[in-house]
């Protein structure tokens, strides 16, 4: 493969199962970096609330480091907010704090039969997201794939009600939990379709609440998987299912969800996953976004990049959000290694 592809060609061909000039190095989760924020002069607490700032911040990973994507938003509250939850962006704090839900809409079991607003896609930050995606597309969309993410139904349920209660009710009242997840799956599809209309090239569904650190593989299969299937069926752009933490026992289920690709983190034994899923399955991740990319040495960054490729990942892809404090030299070391080693 002589010709050098644009990031967009590379990523789209990867999803289509076609050969690429080199391994892609991208992500489906948050793309905020302190380096980018500093250059733009933006505060982390603000960029969630301003479409232009969000789009510009998301574009910095590709502009500064030549990363193969541009992904927004950076937090996990968009859908919950559209459903009526209040969020906290910690405007007073100088530290790097991620937005959280400050007020849930379900306070007890009896409130689980929620009403979904008819104008859902005009609520909360959905309009802002559309605008931000549009800005990024215009800015770099010709050569860089623009991605976004939504939550999985279980993780979203954990945002709008107490996770402790949700976990217990999953056993005690599975019907109620299923009914809620069915509604939320429809919400997720609606939001994903809005993002598609706004122009995203691919989407990640983050179902981290259903990691095997928390929920058994059996419960994942019976309770979560059917809803994920119903979501992926409706998504048109290339899709990724992400779950962090322990996942080796559920990668088969994950792949069976209908997602084009799956994403795991460093707790997954990816060589084993590759063996299980065969040579053609798209498996991303396994790259430790903090202990390697942020606090590791440049050597460790290079070594990990090579190891992930050797173990059989289909793309170099940090196992969670890019952690903002990533040192620029580490980010560059990862990209250089992919460009060089990822050719074979």
């Amino acid at each position, binding site marked *: 493969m002589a010709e050098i592809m644009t990031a967009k060609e590379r990523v789209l061909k990867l999803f289509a199962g076609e050969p690429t000039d080199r391994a892609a190095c991208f992500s489906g989760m948050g793309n905020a970096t302190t380096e980018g924020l500093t250059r733009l002069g933006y505060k982390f607490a603000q960029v969630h609330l301003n479409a232009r700032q969000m789009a510009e911040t998301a574009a910095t990973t590709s502009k500064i480091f030549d990363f193969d994507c541009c992904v927004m938003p950076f937090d996990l509250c968009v859908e919950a907010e559209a459903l009526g939850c209040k969020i906290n962006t910690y405007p007073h*704090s100088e530290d*790097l704090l*991620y937005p*959280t839900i400050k007020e849930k809409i379900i306070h007890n079991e009896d409130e689980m039969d929620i009403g979904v607003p008819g104008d859902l896609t005009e609520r909360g930050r959905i309009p802002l997201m559309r605008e931000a995606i549009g800005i990024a597309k215009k800015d770099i969309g010709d050569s860089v794939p623009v991605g976004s993410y939504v939550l999985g139904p279980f993780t979203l349920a954990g945002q709008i009600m107490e996770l*402790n209660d949700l*976990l217990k009710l999953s056993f005690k009242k599975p019907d109620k939990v299923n009914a809620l997840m069915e509604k939320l799956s429809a919400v997720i599809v609606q939001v994903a379709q809005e993002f598609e209309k706004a122009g995203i090239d691919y989407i990640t569904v983050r179902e981290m609440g259903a990691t095997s650190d928390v929920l*058994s593989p059996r419960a994942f299969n019976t309770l979560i998987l059917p809803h994920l299937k119903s979501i992926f069926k409706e998504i048109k752009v290339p899709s990724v299912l992400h779950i962090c933490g322990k996942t080796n026992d559920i990668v088969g289920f994950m792949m069976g969800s209908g997602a084009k690709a799956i994403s795991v983190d460093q707790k997954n034994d990816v060589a084993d996953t590759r063996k299980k899923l065969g040579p053609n399955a798209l498996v991303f991740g396994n790259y430790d976004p903090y202990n390697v990319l942020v606090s590791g040495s440049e050597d460790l960054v290079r070594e990990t990049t090579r190891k992930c490729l050797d173990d059989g990942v289909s793309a170099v892809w940090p196992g969670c959000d890019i952690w903002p404090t990533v040192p620029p030299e580490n980010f560059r070391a990862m990209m250089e290694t992919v460009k060089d080693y990822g050719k074979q």
Partner: protein
Amino acid sequence: MATEERKSEILDKLRNAVIEYDEDSAKELAQTALDEGVDANTAIFNGLVSGMQKVGALFEKQEYFVPELLMCADALYAGLEILKPHVKQMDLGVRGSVVIGTVEGDVHDIGKNIVKMMFDVAGFTVYDLGRDVPLDKFVEEQLKTDSDLVCLSAMMTTTMVGMKKIIEDIKKKNPKVKIMIGGAPVSQDIADKWGADGYAPDATNALKDAINMISSLKKLKEDAEANKKI
């Protein structure tokens, strides 16, 4: 008065009610235990707590996951509620009180809740501040409740740094208080660096450490009192 055999049968059933996360049976059996003359302390420790220990082992072996653990805890609390008024004197070697919470900016509280549960089980008085707790709140609550121990949880490398400030503040105001920290990004190394008195990778070790710390604290106090008398 029940026979020894009957008593041990009741204890076994109580233990199983916790393991099988059967809240109703736990309540019923706690009452049966009282009615048939089983000592409340025994029912708690050889029934409920013993069941919870087994649950911990099942969790470690990944036969149980977090939902099962939480449901077992509910069964245990249900039995405890009935037995507690009849306890003569909880004798655990130590009795302590602890302030616990997940630090500001962090809503990951599954791990914290498990640690909290261990303290409840062991008869500690627990002041749970919840998650996303403003840093000053820990200092305030410790002073207000005069707790022996403050437990801080953080699951993110960004929020973890808040612990450093809390530790400094508490140690300034109240140098005798013991502070224990935990959560996935935390390590023994960090605990040492920031001057925390303890770190534990999981809930069982957290409890063991806490008991040791509080014993040493109590010993210090007793020695001080004894010295005063002389």
